[in-house]
């Protein structure tokens, strides 16, 4: 009698350098040259992944707190949400890279007995222990006020249980302190789009195909060294 939840999707957002030009900037993920880059790496405290779903009898959520990955931005860029604009961008283009990984078995449900076990099976965790995301595009939304998080539209490839899908989602980046950023976002998904079967127990419940993944990802600037 457990509710079976399913899947974790992880999103990574890459903060990119933005041009100072103002509204509707398009950021392109191009490769970042090694001399140029500054790396933000996953910080162990403050991360959160939440997967919310439904079923015929109960809504459910699953949570995790371990996100690994990095993003690199050009050294000249400064992301400071206390300021009105992103500093240091040149020519309307920001070169950055980011790859994010979540281990499937770091996501759990505390409420319902057996839910975590069924989730691992539904996710095929034995064969695919990780979920990964690679960002391909980040677009700054206009109208950022100093002190508020920067708002972006992100696109990238999400790999779950060996299946790759392109996804798009809104993302926010805010400055936590001098060296840390918090990247947050959420995206609705369908389990079946990744070849996963929503868990069903005949006559008792059926998990819904629609889920929503939300995350907070804290990254910290690595000192000096390049990746």
């Amino acid at each position, binding site marked *: 009698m457990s509710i079976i939840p399913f899947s974790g999707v992880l999103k990574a957002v890459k903060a990119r350098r933005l041009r100072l030009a103002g509204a509707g900037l398009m950021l392109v993920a191009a490769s970042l040259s090694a001399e140029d880059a500054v790396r933000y790496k996953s*910080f*162990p405290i403050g991360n959160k992944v939440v997967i919310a779903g439904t079923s015929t009898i109960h809504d459910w959520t699953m949570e995790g707190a371990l996100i690994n990955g990095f993003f690199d931005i050009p050294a000249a860029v400064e992301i400071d949400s206390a300021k009105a604009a992103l500093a240091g961008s040149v020519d309307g283009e920001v070169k950055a890279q980011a790859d994010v990984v979540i281990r499937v078995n770091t996501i*759990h449900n505390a409420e319902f007995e057996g839910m975590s*076990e069924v989730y691992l099976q539904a996710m095929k965790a034995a064969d695919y222990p990780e979920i990964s995301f690679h960002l391909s595009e980040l677009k700054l939304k206009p109208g950022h006020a100093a002190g508020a998080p920067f708002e972006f539209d992100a696109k990238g490839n999400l790999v779950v249980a060996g299946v790759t899908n392109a996804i798009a989602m809104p993302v926010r980046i805010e400055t936590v302190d001098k060296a840390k950023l918090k990247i947050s976002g959420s995206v609705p998904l369908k389990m079946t789009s990744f070849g996963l079967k929503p868990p069903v127990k005949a*006559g*008792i419940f059926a998990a819904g195909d629609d889920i929503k993944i939300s995350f907070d990802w804290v990254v910290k600037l690595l000192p000096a060294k390049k990746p």
Partner: protein
Amino acid sequence: MNLPEAEKPLDDLNRRDFLRGASFGSLMVMMGGIPLHAQEKPGAAPADTGFDATGLPLNCAVIGCGVWGREILHTLAVMPNAPVVAICDTYAGFLRRASEITPKAAQFKDYRQVLELKEVQGVIVATPSHQHREIVEAALKAGKHVYCEAPLAASIEDARAIAQAAKAAVKLNFQAGLQARSDPWRHYIVSKFLRVGAVGKNLSARSQWHARDSWRRTAQNPEREKELNWRLRRDVSPGIIGEAGVHQLDVMNWFLNERPTAVTGFGNILAWSDGRDVPDTVQAVLEYPDQVNYLYDGTLGSSFEAECDTLFGTYATVMMRGTKGWLFKESDSPLLGWEIYASKEQFHTETGIVLSMNATKSVKPKSAEDAAYSESPLHFALAAFLKNSNIVGTGAKNFSDTYGADTSDGLPEYMATLAKDRAAAAGFEEGFEATVCALKANEAIVQGGKIVLKKEWFEI
């Protein structure tokens, strides 16, 4: 690591719920669980996806295969995710009897060999109490999750050492053998009755532990006889209140949500004058805050009414006997609203509302889901040990896989986020507190007199 306490006062349980012929499952729903009625939508039901909700396995070893160790083995043997890979006892006879329960387990006389086995993930220590410390410390050092039977030790110093080692072992799971803390039925009583004030103001409490049993076991030679009868030797025995009463005392601490401030004891050898120096008939009065006193009565000389725990309140009395419990309401207490629909039993002049998990008038055959919830507290405690050990072990491994093995920054915070996933179980804090209370009570009993329980004794 406890189940959520009262969220829904009992008057929310209404007539409709009871008359629905509630099964245990439905009771669980009212406790905030999952409704188990079948989907009402018409149309073909989808077929099962075949996913299995059984928890991850944990390779177990049991060290100490006496009567209780073998009870543990019997319980593990029917749990599909609890493979017992090793059993250990210094006494060949016990080891042989244990191997009949778990024939596939490797057999050892020396616990150190068990701890060297890489495949052993969790260790259950069920040796005589005074031998726990050395084994528990070694097991934690060897990176094993530990379930240590209660009382944690036969001296407060040893118990504290165990608690400190458990506290320091952030990447490992430690559970004290106070199995009532994992029992959903007792959680039900606490959250649905006690914490919402169904008993009114606490007046006093009373427990008894009666058995007609000398506790003396025979053996082939005097050396073995001495070892086997450790419970009859004052130098190592925690006594009746330490060995049996520790569980009842812990439950009362939990029910009252307090710890005792003083204990007065009386102890005598009345039934079995066979040269032992441990009292076979004991009484203790434990004083709690708000002038609530808890009377304990234990004997090895009479089996009358076996085990019984009672909490008296101005509105009602809660009485538990083994796995059955009742609520006796006073005539002038506020109505909870559902009393007339509840199952009742008559005791001489008292009428008690049955506090079982299936407290309705309808007589239903035991369904499979109900059967799952009528397991023993030991079963729930061991299941919790398996689950929590996997949560902690996987969590620690995930953390080091994610951030590197030498990163300890953020590890305690991460382990804390896993706390809500854990099944209810007694940790080292509860284990240590109950052990201190029980050992001091035993000391008061043996000396005869009052001991004020000092705050610093409870510090870990």
